[in-house]
């Protein structure tokens, strides 16, 4: 028992060492935790109702009453920013889950079975990848009608093929490792090979992919909301908030800064985590000249 807790302590200590060495990664983790914390804060602090309009206090700059000011309808920017966290980040995470739900089995099956199955599956992915991603998402939204749900589906439909390709590449690399080949020769089943041998190997690089791809999905979703074809008003969503701020941003700079910084920081957090993990995984050093 004592031994076990000492071991745990040791791994915590090592984790802290890693964070100390990789400042980008720790900043990224900090940002993501901060967002999670703030999104939970309405449980402890009462904010002004995010959709409550106060037409007398339109476009007012930050004050004691409205710490981050109000928007063109007199709504509190701070509470809208907080209420938008679960919408914006939640939509991105959900879209990423949908993407993985398609891409992971797709890449695994194509990579492990190989041959004609692989060729056909990759050809299907290529067909969708032949369209620029955001444009494909636009078309899907065009076909479904503008809404947050449509933009999630559109982004997922446009983003899964590249993820499937990346996962397939990881699987192919993992498959060629000696012990996996040995397991295959020894007659282990596909499922066993996937879960015992392939998954543990591709998991670390997959974490990098998930983190970086969630960042790009978040950017895409907020772009679509900004264009007015994603989340619809009055839903608090960062992209939609910026869209609403467009006619007024010369008069009320805070309306431009708050949601913009929110998207940037969230994307930055995800990118920093992805980059940091990638850096830990790849330690080759170049020759000095």
């Amino acid at each position, binding site marked *: 028992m004592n031994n076990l807790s000492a071991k745990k302590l040791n791994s915590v200590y090592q984790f802290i060492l890693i964070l100390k060495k990789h400042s980008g990664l720790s900043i990224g983790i900090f940002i993501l935790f901060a967002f999670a914390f703030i999104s939970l804060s309405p449980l402890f602090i009462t904010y002004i109702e995010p959709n409550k309009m106060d037409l007398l206090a339109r476009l007012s700059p930050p004050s004691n009453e409205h710490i981050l000011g109000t928007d063109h309808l007199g709504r509190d920017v701070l509470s809208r920013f907080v209420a938008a966290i679960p919408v914006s980040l939640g939509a991105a995470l959900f879209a990423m889950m949908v993407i993985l739900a398609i891409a992971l089995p797709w890449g695994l099956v194509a990579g492990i079975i190989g041959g004609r199955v692989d060729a056909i599956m990759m050809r299907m992915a290529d067909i969708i990848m032949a369209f620029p991603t*955001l444009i494909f998402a636009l078309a899907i939204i065009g*076909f479904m009608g503008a809404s947050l749900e449509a933009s999630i589906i559109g982004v997922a439909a446009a983003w899964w093929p590249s993820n499937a390709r990346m996962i397939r590449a990881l699987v192919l690399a993992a498959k060629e490792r000696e012990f996996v080949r040995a397991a295959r020769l020894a007659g282990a089943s596909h499922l066993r090979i996937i879960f015992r041998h392939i998954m543990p190997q591709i998991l670390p690089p997959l974490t990098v992919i998930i983190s970086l791809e969630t960042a790009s999905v978040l950017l895409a979703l907020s772009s679509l909301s900004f264009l007015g074809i994603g989340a619809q008003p009055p839903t608090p969503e960062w992209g939609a908030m910026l869209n609403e701020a*467009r006619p007024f941003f010369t008069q009320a700079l805070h309306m431009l800064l708050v949601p913009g910084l929110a998207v940037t920081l969230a994307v*930055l957090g995800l990118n920093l985590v992805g980059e940091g993990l990638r850096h830990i995984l790849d330690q080759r*050093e170049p020759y000095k000249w």
Partner: protein
Amino acid sequence: MIKYLLIRMASALPTLLGMTIVAFAIVSLAPGDPIEQELRAMGIVPTVEDLNALRAKYGLDKPFIYRYLDWMSRAVQFDFGTSIATGRTVINEISLHFPATFTLAISALFGTILISLTLGIAAVASNQNTASFLRALTVVLVSIPSFWLALILIYIFVFYFGWARLVGDGSLRDLVLPVITLSLGSGAALGRVVYERIRAEMCEDYVRLAIAKGVSPAKILLRHITPRIIGPLATAWTNALGGLLGGAVIVESIFGWPGLGQLILQAISQRDFPIIQAYLVFMGLGFFITSLIADIIVIITDPQLRRKNSHE
């Protein structure tokens, strides 16, 4: 070489065909009847007979395959029908908006290449502190959403300094801010690719030999590393064009640039399906052509592949 090109294009045929099917399917399987919606939008409540008659007129009562083949046979003659919203032919609308988007995307591509090379090579050449600063800068630039960057640039350069104008006439001067907006993010992202490519090559044995020979860094980069990475980089750059075409929609909307992006946004809100279809096909085609160009560059710069293809 020509033979290779033909083979490459033939192997892409199924993809192209699949693309058209996807483009057609997305729109023609859309829920809601475009004709009914259109009529309702005009304030007409159609009878069932009217609807059926109109459907028959537009061929919407036929099965999917038939409609696809019909659409394809006209599409190869650049006949994509007429816009439901404006009544003009689709190809007319597209060709009206295409030049603006083409100019924007190509300028942004050059901007991207320039920025990525500058950032990537600077990161390779600089010492540890500068390199980590550049890395941080890259991550930040990649993370800034283009729509926000555009608004900030407008705030600074249009409203604060008054150096640029918002509603332009499509002259070269009006292109500067949109191009910067589009190319900063992708340039930074690709700058990292450039940096990592070079760094990966710097770990290779042949670089060690070049160093042992006493070759200077600039010459190692230019003579030894460049031929190895130019193909992959060309692929990365042309792939970035896809992102730029998508980003163009956002930037055009903000800067009022009269390109295809404006057209598609309008088409989406008006559910103008023929326009959406044609837009998807053209964008896919443009993207396809650029990846073909990238493939040719890969072949030209890889001696092993080049030799193999010329012998076959």
